[in-house]
């Protein structure tokens, strides 16, 4: 598998996704090798079974955007050929057509997903908090922290539907992320794969099926530790959403303060 720009796009524990993929391969006796691809390194996506890209701050996104653009056509061809991809947060945004930043500056993306992301301006709040999604991999949990709002093209499938949290937060639908063939884009970190073994295994399975044929299936595994973390994240998302739904105005400020004090004091 290839880990794109690990030193730059690594903001919210993105390393955890690589750790999880390796761990879950190892459990099944599958050898895995991670190749770190930084700006300027040779990289042919066709030679890989899986590609992962993480998130970065605005300045970091700008830093790798040009390099990513040069790799756009080969990545796109590989995705058409069924290459599984996980693109998180900033990496997800750059897999759309463009990211229009706070200052109006446009960073072009590689257009694997038919979508664009726009920052709504300094006045708008960032989307920060626990998230639960409904997806074809079941309930997916994670944490989001992004300023941009993502608008999907009319035929573009989302990765999932928001149950708790904000997601693409475009005002038009409750979509989160994007999905095209075996490429998955999402705002969720946390890291997303360790706590969502169904998604981690799903990506590995896609990779193995692409290489070895459709009848390949991963052996099931006792996921008690993973499920416990998953459950605690769901519980957190629910309890925090209660605090967020406190409305606006001076009375709401008091309610929020009380909620914060409760939080500081331990619930």
């Amino acid at each position, binding site marked *: 598998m290839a880990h794109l720009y690990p*030193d*730059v796009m*690594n*903001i*919210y*524990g*993105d*390393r*955890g996704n690589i*750790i*999880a993929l390796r*761990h879950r391969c190892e459990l099944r006796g599958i050898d895995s090798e991670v190749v770190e691809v930084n700006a300027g390194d040779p990289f042919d996506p066709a030679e890989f079974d899986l590609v992962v890209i993480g998130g970065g*701050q*605005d*300045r*970091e996104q700008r*830093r790798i955007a040009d390099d990513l653009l040069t790799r756009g056509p080969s990545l796109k061809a590989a995705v058409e050929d069924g290459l599984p991809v996980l693109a998180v947060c900033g990496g997800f945004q750059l897999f759309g057509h463009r990211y229009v930043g706070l200052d109006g500056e446009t960073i072009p993306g590689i257009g694997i997903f038919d979508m664009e992301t726009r920052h709504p301006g300094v006045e708008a709040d960032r989307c*920060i*908090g*626990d998230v639960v999604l409904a997806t074809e991999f079941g309930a997916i949990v994670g*944490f989001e*922290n992004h300023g941009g709002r993502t608008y999907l093209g009319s035929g573009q499938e989302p990765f999932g539907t928001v149950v708790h949290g904000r997601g693409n937060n475009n005002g038009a639908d409750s979509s989160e992320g994007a999905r095209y063939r075996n490429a998955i884009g999402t705002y969720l*970190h*946390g*890291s997303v794969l*360790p*706590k969502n073994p169904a998604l981690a295994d799903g990506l590995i399975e896609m990779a193995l099926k692409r290489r070895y044929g459709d009848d390949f299936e991963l052996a099931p595994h006792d996921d008690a*530790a*993973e499920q*416990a*973390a998953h*459950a*605690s*994240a769901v519980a*957190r998302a629910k309890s*925090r959403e209660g605090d967020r739904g406190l409305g606006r105005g001076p009375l709401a400020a008091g309610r929020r303060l009380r909620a*914060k004090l409760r*939080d*500081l004091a*331990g619930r």
Partner: protein
Amino acid sequence: MKLRVVAAVHAARLATFVSRRLLGRGGTALPGLVAERVAPGALAGLGGQLERTVLVTGTNGKTTTARILAAILAADGKAVVANREGSNLTRGMVSALVAEAGWRGRIAAAETTIGVFEADEASLPAAAAALQPAAIVFTNLFRDQLDRYGEVDTVAGFWRRAIAMVPDDCVLILNADDPSVAELATVRDLPVRWFGIDDLRSGGERGAFDARWCGACGTDFSYDHRFFGHIGHWRCRGCGRERPTPGTSALRVSDGEDGLSVEVQGLGIVETGLRGQYNAWNTLAAIAAGEVLGASAAALRKGPATIGPVFGRQESFAIGSKTLRLYLVKNPAGANQVVQLLGRTDEDDGFAFFLNDRFADGQDVSWTWDVDFELLAGRGGRVWAGGDRGADAALRLHYAGLGVEPVLPPQPAEALRTLLEAMDEGLTLHAIVTYTALLELRRELARQGLAKSTLD
């Protein structure tokens, strides 16, 4: 003294009385908060009376560095006023000054007293503007809890603004080994005192890293030697800038059971009760500041030696034959330093990770994946996970290759009981804890009368 500042002192003293006597709290921020409301110029009015002031900021190590510096100055016979742990917003500084002020708003012997204030990264501009410091110490710049300030660039921006507001003779005390801190020397033509480590026996492993690049030409920094993260002997191959040679340099750093021994160039061996390489930088930063303030060589050596563990940072509790050590962690960089330290402890010692996700801890627990817990795999001791997000902590440790005991109960009392019963006699348990978990565990230890902190 402006009348308004005097009124602020009165109001703050009343607030101190009310919070202590009527609410039973030793709140440290409230008096300052009240004083700032009454007189927005309270910090300048009170702090301006002092002989000199030093501000200490940075992502990690500011509490420890400020403590060591205060000890050096005390050893030099100076009177020192300092803010307390965690009270590092301007209101915390005001609270500390109010406590020293008389009813007329005068601080006794102010003209021979030095202020040593740790400043929250974002509070630095306001503190610098009000206090007009003689020196500012910058320890390091790492990513912190990102739901707090956003980006590393944002924090660097606060610092540049602060530097623009200080007097022309203010000395910047900068970590030569952190290229992001070193960049601050280019903001303005101010005197600089550099500190850094020239003992290259540690580090070199890859570990968690986030790339930094040259502000002048945009080239990624290269490293002749990397200690950890982005800290090391850096150079820019684009424009030729490189790590400055530090005036306060550690030629040799030895980390023993009883603490650090640092051979400082021109000063000799300096010892401290603190452990871990990261505390060598904190010690050097404090010595550099002490040198700038004209402290004697004897005081520079003696001050650090009087320092034991700082609140929650390596605190030790003796419980019968068992020992519980608490290590506060706030971000991956700090946690990685503690993990490296634990890698060198007795391998039969137990290890625990208490992970809370409240506001003061950072609500996002993904930072745990940037901590190299993998370094602890293969130790003999038992491993526990606890806190509000104990399941997440357990999963992280599990994926790091550690065999984890069943997750501890979320209630601190229950967790503590389970741990103490399970611990073997004569062994030490090293617990990495987030901020609110630390508060809860300390409170519980005190409540059960189980142990008296060696700090108190």
